[in-house]
């Protein structure tokens, strides 16, 4: 999954949950029963303790895209790298809303912006050392930015916001141009000062500084794509030995780490182990019986374990069911007939049975029904529902009216694309197909491999037009917890790309574009939130988005874990805080 989200406002969560529980209908129907889970790690830190020691055991059903902090785009990985790669800025170890407010980590303070908004300055703390005891300098941060954003021929897995924002001319990256002085996007007046020079103001720069890409990398230790096998630690743990991808990763204490420089307490266990490619059902079983402490991917347990947990009161007491900040939706492409007519798009919006789609993802535990394009945790969220129907099951009357208006009273045919290797998305597409069918809207399902979905099929407008993919299944999470971080990639006209496109609705509304551009130049967070609300409203009115689910995960925390809480910044347990009860 394209899990690239960070942070959101927790305040909205409970409200949204309530709302969708009512609006979602179907909820606690006849066979429902009481399956409510504990949820205490969402709002508080469970089992607080200062104890140290033990081995923290983590497992992943697949593997991280990379352990290189400069080459990764997974929230779980961003959460996890904080154990060995400290960044200029980070998020505090606090549950709820406060957990997504950036705080300085390597830097002494949050970024200092110049008056024109074009220069952001950070200063490193004193006494910071790499795992070999050598001093961390501003140059190392600059190098890290250069390699992670300006050398896509080598490292291309992470986001490239710095590349887009920094005023760096045509710098070719450190692998082609090893003179770092030519990289003018970042300057280092002294050993501790880092200045970022922007092309245009960007008010949310501190969120970027919290990305693992700002974790310093010593240039002489960089081995390009192979750096992930031996990352030079700046955090409390370091690699025990050179790591081979796929093999168990063991982190041990880094003796050159100085906790006094760290705003967080992230050194509780003695040792941390991560196993990869662990079969999901087995992973869940081990989680429940305590052989394993955390599912590091943070996506929650699978269907089988879900039933075990929900049916067992004792297990429910150790479970949380938070929203993941991930919004699931269908993009309706206005450049594919008959969706060039708004009324035809509306027919789909009115016809969708969102309870069925919720069911496809696994029911009420799997998510709350979404009615608009902002997740509830993002500031600026309002519970608007322009295309709401009774019980969210669709409205025959409204669909028929819309069909008549678009000149196709008997319905029409189109295609729904989805990622074939994602069972739930596949099921959802089938659910939509089922719902639309009764109104005469005939759809063919087109599955594509997730691996090429964004690059070749759904993410290629040319392909979408040619194959007439009218309705495209997708999901989105924010790269950082703000409206811009969430919305810009999926609805700004500038983000339409010939390949790797994520604006699947091909929305290019001047009004939306303008508002989004404005937002990042607005210093006041409250004003920004207003703008996001407005963008959301406009996007919904375009009738090119069919949001249906704010995804939730069923997380299980074994008894042995201490200091467990759900981080709103990463949308999973904060791995840096975890300890073990001895």
């Amino acid at each position, binding site marked *: 999954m*394209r899990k690239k989200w960070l942070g959101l406002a927790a305040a909205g969560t409970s409200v949204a949950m309530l709302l969708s529980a009512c609006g979602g209908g179907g909820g606690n129907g006849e066979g429902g029963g009481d399956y409510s889970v504990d949820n205490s790690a969402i709002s508080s830190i469970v089992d607080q303790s200062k104890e140290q020691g033990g081995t923290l055991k983590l497992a992943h059903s*697949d*593997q991280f*895209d*990379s352990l290189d902090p400069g080459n990764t*785009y997974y929230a779980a990985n961003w959460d996890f790298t904080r154990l060995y790669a400290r960044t200029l800025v980070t998020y505090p170890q606090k549950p709820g809303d406060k957990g997504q407010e950036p705080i300085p980590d390597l830097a002494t303070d949050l970024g200092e912006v110049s008056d024109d908004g074009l220069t952001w300055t950070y200063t490193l703390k004193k006494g910071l050392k790499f795992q070999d005891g050598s001093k961390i300098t501003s140059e190392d941060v600059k190098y890290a930015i250069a*390699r992670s954003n300006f*050398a*896509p*021929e*080598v*490292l*291309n*897995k992470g986001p490239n916001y710095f590349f887009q924002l920094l005023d760096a001319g045509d710098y070719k990256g450190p*692998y082609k141009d090893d003179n770092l002085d030519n990289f003018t996007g970042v300057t280092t007046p002294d050993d501790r000062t880092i200045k970022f020079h922007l092309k245009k103001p960007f008010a949310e720069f501190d969120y970027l500084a919290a990305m693992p890409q700002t974790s310093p990398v010593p240039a002489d230790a*960089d*081995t*390009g*794509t*192979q750096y*992930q096998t031996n990352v030079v630690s700046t955090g409390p743990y370091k690699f025990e030995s050179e790591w*081979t*991808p*796929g*093999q168990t990763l063991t982190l041990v204490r880094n003796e050159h780490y100085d906790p006094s420089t760290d705003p967080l307490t992230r050194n509780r266990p003695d040792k941390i182990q991560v196993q990869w*490619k*662990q*079969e999901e*059902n*087995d*992973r869940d*079983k081990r989680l429940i019986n305590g052989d394993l402490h955390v599912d590091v991917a943070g996506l929650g347990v699978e269907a089988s374990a879900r039933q075990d947990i929900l049916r067992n009161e004792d297990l429910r007491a150790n479970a949380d069911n938070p929203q993941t900040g991930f919004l699931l939706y269908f993009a309706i492409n206005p450049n594919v007939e008959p969706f060039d007519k708004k009324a035809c798009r509306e027919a789909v919006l009115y016809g969708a049975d969102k309870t069925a789609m919720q069911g496809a993802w696994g029911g009420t535990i799997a998510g709350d029904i979404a009615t608009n394009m902002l997740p509830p945790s993002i500031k600026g969220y309002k519970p608007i529902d322009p295309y709401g129907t009774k019980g969210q099951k669709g409205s025959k009357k409204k669909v028929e009216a819309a069909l008549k208006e678009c000149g196709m009273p008997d319905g029409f045919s189109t295609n729904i694309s989805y990622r074939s*290797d994602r069972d739930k998305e596949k099921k959802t597409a089938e659910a939509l197909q089922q719902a639309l069918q009764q109104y005469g809207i005939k759809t063919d399902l087109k599955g594509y*491999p*997730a*691996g*090429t979905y*964004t*690059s*070749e099929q759904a*993410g290629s407008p040319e392909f979408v037009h040619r194959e007439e993919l009218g309705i495209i299944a997708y999901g989105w999470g924010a790269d950082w917890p703000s409206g811009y971080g969430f919305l810009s990639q999926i609805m700004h006209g500038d983000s339409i790309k010939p*390949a*790797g496109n994520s604006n699947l609705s091909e929305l290019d509304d001047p009004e939306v574009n303008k508002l989004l551009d404005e937002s990042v130049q607005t210093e006041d967070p409250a004003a920004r939130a207003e703008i996001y609300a407005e963008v959301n409203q406009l996007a919904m009115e375009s009738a090119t988005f069919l949001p249906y689910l704010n995804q939730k995960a069923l997380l299980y925390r074994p008894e042995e874990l201490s200091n467990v809480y759900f981080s709103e910044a990463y949308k999973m347990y904060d791995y840096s805080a975890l300890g073990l009860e001895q």
Partner: protein
Amino acid sequence: MIRYIFRRLAAGVVLLLVVTMVVFAIFFLVPRLAGIDSDGLAARYIGKSPSPEAIAAVKERLNLDEPITVQYWEFVSGLVMGQEYDSGTDIIHCDAPCFGYSFKTNTEVWPQLLERLPVTGSLAIGAAVIWLVAGVSIGVLSALRRGSLLDRAAMMTALAGVSLPIFFTGLVSLALLSYYWPIFPPGGSYTDFTENPLAWAHGLVLPWVTLAFLYAAMYARLTRAGMLDTMGEDFIRTARAKGLPERTVVTKHGLRAALTPIITIFGLDFGLMLGGAVLTESTFSLPGLGKFAVDAIRGSDLPVVLGVTMFTAVFVVIANLVVDVLYAWVDPRVRVGA
């Protein structure tokens, strides 16, 4: 004999070459014929949202814009002589045999194949022992007691065995023996032999039995048919006429002749299995070669798929070779005949 081995070896090389052609065709030629351009093809080798720069780099690395013959040549020479990849700071030498380089995980495929081989090997060897012992002995008993209750029961079971999809048997056995009665560990548990031999065996019991059931059924049928044929041969009558005890007649004379053709089949099966018991490993989530390939296909990590496919083919070729030699050793007639 040496000449014979040499000839089979040469045949094995040819076989491998053809395998490379087919693999190459599947991964490079067929997609092109089906209308995918070189950019699209390159993108497949990178995975999630590839950048144009990365596509260009991969295109160059795989020679995707060269004529098809050049591409093939590079492909084969890469396998045989190794390849080089630019890590940014260094040149990574993927030494021969280079079974590819995953752009997705930035790792060489070869060490990963080696790493998974023990799992698949454990599965294959254990299962093979079970199925050979069970299949052959049941087959022999059935043949000797042809028409008896035992024969009929065994053959009905065998027929059921070859008709049961392995993934179904596996799932049912997991559901019963691991879930309802937690006698065996659940799917996905694999302990290395060197770590704890007991846990190793305990964890593999279900996969072994599941896999062995199918093959034992097949081999029981084959052995029975072979034994029936053999026991009707004139030389069996000769052996009896010599006054040999029935046991010697069956084991020394009957079994040896009946088992000889089974060697070939076994070699082929075993070779294929070493390349990954895809279904069993998937059903029990064993981290072996087969599961590796399935995961790679799901994750669109084509170099890995390609690597496993080639690797498997190598095993089959080796197994063929071993079988040929073994066959010549067991059956003196082959040496002259071939």
